[in-house]
């Protein structure tokens, strides 16, 4: 397959791995490298990348799975909206099984709520046109990767004057989350594999604080196996050469200044929320997006009464520590027993981008 197989060539991987081996021997200590993005976590497990790395390199699976960081209270809110008989709730497939405090969207659907999976938020506008007597609410979530497409959907709804469409906005931002992680004393990292798709939107400049203030190297990486190997090699090279820089491995897609059209769309439609409660990580200031007052008629939080309750995470669930890289999934007591992909307690077990589900799915519960 063109543009894919080139980045999965085993002989090139072998050569890169050899280079990684050589570099790692020059580093006496054990290294902890965090891949921030859930897409990387998935690829690392799918291709068995971790087990090919030298023993002194440990990968920590960070908080970059949007489904994993969605707090129970917001899921409850989405379910409450969906139970309104006038409402058709649209969302991405991953969201359906994320546990709220009592139930999930899949169960709400079985009980009669009209919940539909869409591949693009724009599909919601077509549903709105096809069902003029119903209210279509898009349950939008994700990092800066998906925010431009939802922003564009709202702009499109405004342009076409579609009045029966709104969005329940749960977009979150990567940079404040990284800051919160770096400020956590539990976390001892030696470098970051930076999120490729987020960076395609925001560029590489916003990461400069990581190297300048926190003195950590970061390499923005693509999602194919060779991308990941090369990024790890670039990180090791920085460590060996005692450099702390923002480097871009994914330059076939990521530009230094990002994508200005996407950034403008986000800025036009969304403002920064004062604070957002991340599952596992707690409240992080300035880490979420909300719909600007100018577009309030497309804001489901304005249009509908939502419970808006904050619900504490399950006591036994260690998702928080796992997202911070303090614990490995199998060190959580409920991993693989009470908490499985079929009956997830914590959200890291829901999406295939979550660290727990990736471990469970690809490495088995007997780690």
């Amino acid at each position, binding site marked *: 397959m063109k543009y*894919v197989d080139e980045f999965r060539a085993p002989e090139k991987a*072998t050569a890169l791995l050899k280079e990684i081996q050589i570099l790692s021997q020059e580093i006496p200590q054990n290294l902890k490298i965090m891949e921030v993005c859930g897409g990387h976590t998935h690829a690392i497990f799918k291709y*068995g*990348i971790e087990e090919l790395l030298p023993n002194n390199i440990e990968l920590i699976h960070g908080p970059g799975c949007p489904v994993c960081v969605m707090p129970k209270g917001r899921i409850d809110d989405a379910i409450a909206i969906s139970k309104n008989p006038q409402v058709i709730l649209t969302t991405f497939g991953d969201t359906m099984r994320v546990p709220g405090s009592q139930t999930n969207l899949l169960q709400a659907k079985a009980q009669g709520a009209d919940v539909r999976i869409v591949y693009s938020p724009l599909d919601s506008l077509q549903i709105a046109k096809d069902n003029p007597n119903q209210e279509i609410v898009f349950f939008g979530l994700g990092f800066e990767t998906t925010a431009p497409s939802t922003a564009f959907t709202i702009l499109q709804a405004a342009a076409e004057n579609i009045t029966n469409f709104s969005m329940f906005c749960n977009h979150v931002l990567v940079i404040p989350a990284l800051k919160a992680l770096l400020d956590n004393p539990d976390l001892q990292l030696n470098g970051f594999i930076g999120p490729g798709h987020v960076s395609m939107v925001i560029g590489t400049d916003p990461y400069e604080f990581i190297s300048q203030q926190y003195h950590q190297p970061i390499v923005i990486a693509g999602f194919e196996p060779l991308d990941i190997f090369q990024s790890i090699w670039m990180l090791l090279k920085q460590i060996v050469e005692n450099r702390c820089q923002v480097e871009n491995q994914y330059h076939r897609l990521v530009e230094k200044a990002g994508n200005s059209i996407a950034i403008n769309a986000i800025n036009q439609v969304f403002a920064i929320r004062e604070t957002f409660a991340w599952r596992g990580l707690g409240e992080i200031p300035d880490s979420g997006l909300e719909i600007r007052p100018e577009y309030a008629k497309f804001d489901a939080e304005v249009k509908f009464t939502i419970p808006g309750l904050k619900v504490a995470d399950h006591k036994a669930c260690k998702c928080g520590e796992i997202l911070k890289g303090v614990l490995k999934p199998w060190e959580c007591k409920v991993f693989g027993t009470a908490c499985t992909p079929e009956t997830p307690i914590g959200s890291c077990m829901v999406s295939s981008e979550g660290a727990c589900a990736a471990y469970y799915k690809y490495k088995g519960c007997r780690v």
Partner: protein
Amino acid sequence: MEFDAENSSLNPLFQKIAQVRHYQGRVTDSYITLAHGSGGKAMRDLIEDIFLQQFDNPILAQLEDQATLNLASLLQQGDRLAFTTDSYVVDPLFFPNSNIGELAVNGTVNDLAVSGAKPLYLSCSVIIEEGLPIETLRRIATSMQTAAKKAGVVIVTGDTKVVHRGAVDKLFINTAGIGIIPVGINLSSSKIEQGDVIIVNGELGNHGAAILIARGELALETSIESDCQPLNDLISKILAICPHVHAMRDATRGGLATVLNEFAIAAHVGIRLEDQCIPVKEEVRGICEILGLDPLYLANEGKVVVVVPGEQADLVLSAMRSHPAGKESVIIGEVTLSSPGIVLLKTTFGAERIVDMLVGEQLPRIC
């Protein structure tokens, strides 16, 4: 009016009625209505015009409440009866290279065939939503007969129900099937043992991908066709050359991964797959890349997974390749004693990962 039994045959009114009843029923409506399931004249016309005419065979033509089968002739063909049932609810009814009718015949034929049985008789029950075009039903019945003929089975009994709009989606078909297992053929997943080799008869995931595209929600254009085909002739060829095949299963819903997990659990063995040996069409790989699906879990409707003792593998493989339904047969893995109950995939980089059971649904209503 008094009824005169002696003279009734001369009564011109009765004669006329008897004469009309003798004509074969014909459906003149364009759409199915509730009357077609009422048990009255309209239903009889529908059955005669569509099903009897197509499935034309002496057992069905009796039009009794049941088919009667001659035991003595069955006993000549083997010593055990195989009996199976399956309901078909695929959406859409027609998809590239096949339709629900052909699927309903081949699916049940294949369920019988993988036990080593020679499939002989099928039933056909249809549940129709009012409003279905008669022409659609006729096309589907024609396909069923063509498929039955190709597979060498006879549809000997059936039932027709019509329900209110919305009670089912267009058309659901149930087929049950009976086959005879020849003396000496004994397939069972519990027979799988270390050293066995796993063979499939061609590209995986075509049916699942074809259905996905046929729904038209993705605005993707491909030439992928469903692999729907009967496997009984291929299987009888395999068993003729190697009666001691350990196990066989058709990889329908849940795909190859599900079948192999069932094998590994049932026989308490490990299964090792080679990623680069697993045949997947380029376009199917592409769709999976775009949508984040795994071809190992995509449905097939004409693929059999065969587990044979290692020393017989070449013999079976060449027999399979000489059959039209098995031209692309390949060895994809082997059975080991390590990691019992687990299916492992060797990635192209030489790393190993687990191939777990499918959790949740990858795609609803594929068969």
